[in-house]
């Protein structure tokens, strides 16, 4: 019997709800959602109980138990969570949008509608590049058809 694909979900919001339901619908391929972790401890406990899966305290703990990390965190956390998973040799699924620019670290008052959009574009693509570059070296990205904006 084929062994299941062991998946761990990071985040417990709407994306996690939809992704978990999608894993249940996969047919012909055994998939097991091992557990969920999140910084929102109360919410992720509820998420796990309702679905009969485990709560896992930290991302590091989750990484030690799964093959695939399903990154359902808010957009600003896609980069650090994805890179941590890739660095640990895991496959990664990322909720859309893949990346974005959400202001400098810790800038809770950041307002994207008041920030220069060309700068946001450049920084968002830099984040994309960093995440992709963290993937195995055989998949190192190059930009061939169009230059990045200056």
């Amino acid at each position, binding site marked *: 019997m084929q062994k299941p694909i062991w998946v761990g979900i990071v985040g417990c919001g709407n994306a996690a709800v*939809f992704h978990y339901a999608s894993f249940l619908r996969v047919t012909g*391929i055994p998939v097991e959602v091992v557990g969920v972790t999140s910084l929102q401890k109360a919410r992720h406990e509820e998420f796990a109980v309702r679905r009969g899966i485990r709560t896992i305290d930290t991302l590091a703990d989750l990484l030690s138990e799964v093959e695939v990390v399903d990154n359902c965190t808010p957009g600003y956390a896609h980069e650090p969570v994805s890179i941590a998973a890739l660095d640990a040799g895991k496959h990664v699924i990322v909720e859309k949008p893949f990346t974005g620019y959400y202001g400098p670290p810790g800038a809770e008052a950041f307002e994207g509608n008041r920030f220069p959009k060309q700068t946001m*574009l450049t920084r968002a693509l830099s984040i994309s590049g960093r995440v992709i570059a963290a993937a195995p070296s055989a998949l190192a990205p190059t930009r061939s058809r169009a230059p990045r904006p200056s």
Partner: protein
Amino acid sequence: MSKGFLRTDYTDIEDYCQIHITFEDGTDRQPKSGMLVASDTVAALYAAYVSAERRGAEVDVPIGLTLE
């Protein structure tokens, strides 16, 4: 219309799972919604913001990452 109807999570995740189980067999197929498409989508989204900021002016969409 249900918002859920518009989401493609299931087809994307099933496509990924199919690739996952053949990965060890040496398949070189990338997921349909792989990281290059994801990156190009971000480029298109933010280029649209740039265009809007310039009152609809045409702007370049810097897509085109490839894998070596």
